[in-house]
């Protein structure tokens, strides 16, 4: 242990900063149960014992794991906050690790993650027209396709972003998204949502063959029936311990029959439905797509938390035409395609909402991601389609992740602004525009805040 008097003196030194003092205290704490403590017991050790340290250095050997006393996440986050005070950018981010499973549900673990910035080569942009050459072996002519892989390699880990299954009932992902949403809300101070009064959590009834009934009903429950027969036969002493059962000897009482019967069940329905729509045209390749998908994933997580997991999702991608895709994974991993018309996407969402009468039961959110390009220069059709959607939605959020060649306002921004929607319906529609190349995680989260906050920020 560190000499007490000396330490006390040092700790009382008024010149020392609090940080240094707490370091000293921590040292003392650690040295008391680990490390190479300075005292050594006078007890003689066995000659054949492990005692080099004792004899030669007059120290006790390390008792704890030599690896280290690891810091906890809280300590690390505290350290990160201190960085900000010292004027350096924060380092810890939220990462997700995804593992797709056979039933397509996918498991996700949320982890803290960080990078160590260095000057290093960016392999993704090279003079070669094609990226991702690797080795291979075996038969095959040049040009022949030898293997196929789903677009995202399985098991890829993402930082910040990441693929995942988006549908409601899948517990694993939902739970993790919920956790992530909680962290987002608390650590990144995203606003808590005011859920609109008109669509409270409500209960609906479904009818199902779930109740059991003796002697009659719609469907014989064989398993329960067999169990009952066995019970009865044990009571009749037809079945004895340690004897093989001969089914032909069993007595059958008609009263043992168990049936399933139709019954009314309560079913809790989701409160919110979110449409994620994104442009996947040629110009979106690379950074803009990354930014949009990452932001949409975070929004989904945040809504999951806000709606206590009662969130359903729909995904639409568009180039010159729009289509719905089944889950977040596909949405996230769809590669770029042709040109850009935005209006078909909003027409499609409108059609879905009307056809399925979603407006009656759900709080509806639409988040749309683009690089700001639209071949429809004046945007009439787009504005028209958006307006239709606005009749139903709680919020439409536009994210414009601009390519580096875009300076100033993009077509989409101009069209939305000139439509006057932002001024007339600030509670229903928001737009956030950022340079995709420069978008950090903090900027993306900041963007969410712009899109979802109750009050329009200046």
């Amino acid at each position, binding site marked *: 242990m560190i000499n007490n008097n000396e330490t006390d003196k040092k700790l009382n030194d008024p010149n020392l*900063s609090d*940080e*240094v003092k707490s*370091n*000293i205290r921590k040292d003392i704490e650690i040295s008391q149960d680990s490390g190479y403590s300075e005292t050594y017991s006078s007890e003689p050790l066995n000659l054949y014992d492990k005692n080099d340290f004792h004899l030669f250095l007059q120290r006790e050997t390390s008792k704890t*794991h*030599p*690896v280290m006393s690891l810091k906890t*996440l809280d300590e*690390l986050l505290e*350290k990160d906050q*201190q960085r900000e005070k*010292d*004027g*350096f*950018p924060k380092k810890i981010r939220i*990462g997700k*690790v*995804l*593992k797709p499973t056979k039933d397509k549900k996918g*498991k996700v673990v*949320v*982890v803290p*993650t*960080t990078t*160590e*910035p*260095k*000057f*290093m*080569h*960016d392999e993704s*942009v090279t*003079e070669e027209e*094609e990226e*991702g*050459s*690797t*080795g*291979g*072996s*075996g*038969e095959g002519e*040049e*040009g*022949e*396709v*030898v293997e*196929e*892989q*789903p*677009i995202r390699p399985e098991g890829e880990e993402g930082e910040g972003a990441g693929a995942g299954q988006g549908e409601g009932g899948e517990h694993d992902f939902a739970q993790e998204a919920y956790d992530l949403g909680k962290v987002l809300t608390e650590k990144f101070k995203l606003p808590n949502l005011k859920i609109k009064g008109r669509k409270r959590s409500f209960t609906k009834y479904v009818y199902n063959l779930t109740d059991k009934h003796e002697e009659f009903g719609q469907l014989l429950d064989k398993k329960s029936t067999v169990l009952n027969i066995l019970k009865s036969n044990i009571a009749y002493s037809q079945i004895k311990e340690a004897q093989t059962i001969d089914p032909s000897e069993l007595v059958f009482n008609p009263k043992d029959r168990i049936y399933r019967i139709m019954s009314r069940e309560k079913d809790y329905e989701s409160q919110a439905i979110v449409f994620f729509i994104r442009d996947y045209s*040629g110009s979106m*390749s*690379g950074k803009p797509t990354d930014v949009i998908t990452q932001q949409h994933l975070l929004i989904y997580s945040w809504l999951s938390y806000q709606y206590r997991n009662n969130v359903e999702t729909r995904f639409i991608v568009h180039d010159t035409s729009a289509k719905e895709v089944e889950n977040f994974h596909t949405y996230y991993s769809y590669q770029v395609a042709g040109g850009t018309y935005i209006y078909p996407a909003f027409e499609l969402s409108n059609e879905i909402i009307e056809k399925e009468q979603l407006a009656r039961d759900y709080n509806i959110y639409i988040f749309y991601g683009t690089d700001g390009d639209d071949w429809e220069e004046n945007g009439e059709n787009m504005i028209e389609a958006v307006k239709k959607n606005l009749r139903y939605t709680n919020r439409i959020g536009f994210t414009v992740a601009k*390519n*580096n*060649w875009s300076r100033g306002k993009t077509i989409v921004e101009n069209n939305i602004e000139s439509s006057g929607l932002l001024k007339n319906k600030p509670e229903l529609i928001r737009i956030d525009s950022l340079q995709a*190349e420069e978008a*950090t995680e903090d900027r993306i989260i900041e963007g969410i805040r712009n899109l979802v906050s109750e009050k329009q920020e200046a």
Partner: protein
Amino acid sequence: MELISQRTKRIMEECKVRARDAGLRFEDDSLEYIVSNRDMIELSPKGMIPTLYDYWINDVEVLKNKGVYKLYPNNPFETVINTRPAISYYNDNNPDWMNIMIFYHVLAHIDLFQNNLFFEDTWDYNFADKALADKRLIDNYRREYGRWVDYIIEFSRGINNLVGFFNKLTDKQYQRELDPSKPIEFYFEIFLQEIKKVPEHVIYDEIDHYNETIRKNPQMGESIFFSNIKRKYPEFDATYSRYDEEQHKQKDLMQYIMDNSPFLNKEQNRWMKSVMEIVRETALYFEPQIRTKTINEGWASYWHDQLFMMDDRISGNESAYAKLNAMVTSVSRVGLNPYAIGLRLFHYIERLADQGKLEYKFHKIHDIITRNRYDERLGKGKEAIFKVREIFSDFTLFNTFIDQDFVDEYNLFVAGKQLNEEKGVNEYYVKSRKAEDYKNMLINNMYHPPVIEVNEDKTNEENLYLIHRFEGKQLYKDFIPETLIGLEYLWGGNVQLETTEIVKKRPRLNEQKPKLDFRRVLYSVEDRKVSKETL
């Protein structure tokens, strides 16, 4: 973390005897530990060195890896570190036959660590000890300077991939005794020609004079010659020592900053330089490992296979071994496996040398049929592969031995990736079966940090000016600002970085992919604000 059992250790010792008989060379002592998965996860951000200095970012990494492990529980069979004695970690108590295979594999790794010339700098000390001393020093600093120690570590690590590993290496291998003494070289090559600009005949006269002086008095000749020079040119000594100093300046960016940063050289900041030096030396220690991955795994796979098959202790487990070995060393249909390529290269080189195809005589033959049939039965295979393990790195290995015969024999190809939109899959196709392409693909996939140099003309106390030598790849943009902010702190003034960026041009309507444009840009950081301008 505990040592392997006495019984297993006996198996290891037995393996050592057989490995030595086969020609492998390594020190007697080695330490083997059984570690838990948790230990592995906690050690891996420290490069498996248990005594490495603590750094909070490593702790974040540990937390992350624990999460990853939940989804992807996977354990390496072994990990070896290049310390004295060499330490190897094992995941569990494996069955004996498997231990025999793994131990041979480990011994071959140790053999490479202790004989490959790229590791020469790590031979004279035990890194685990040095790391412990460093760790204690850093702990002490932390007590005194608090979190600022961590900032110094962080900013130093921002450029620790730019350490001058090769500067140091060439220095070590260079045989100075072959050169004339340095002052002599300076006198004739630079002093007379460039500084004094004397006419040519004077130089010839001087050379004659020098040779004669040496002939007359081999021992003292040089000093007699120099005393004459000094009489003639009193400024010679001073000029020489200035030149000599300049010559030693071949330093990496970290050293340059340590030597020249006005901030670090303030009395109260000197401790920062020792922290930087620790980070730098740690990075240097890991350098040879990064550059010998394929050769190292190939070598180890070669020997575990050779030695295992000769080992009589394993009879009965051949099929279990075959399965495991195939898992480790098979070439995949698509993808790169350093074990597999390395192993095949060693087999290939061994056969070439056995047939005499590495001899000069063979290279003079142009006739394809004669070349194919050529077999001198020289039996020099083993000798050749031991030479390769001694003097080659991954780069030189690929660059020297990947040829069309190798690519054809193992049916290798470069796999390209293309998107099939209809199926929603990435397709891998045979892009090329040319050796040149295959070699380039391997080399492109290798570790290659950028070259970033100080421009001394534009550098002064207030400004550090860096130039990135563009090699076809831009720097990873997201990392530039933060790295620069770190450098600004270390320099105590503005920092500028000149680099080339690849910019996507806006695609026309009928174009699928955007065209690329190259742009020379200058990043500047001032008061932690980073700006960028096009040059």
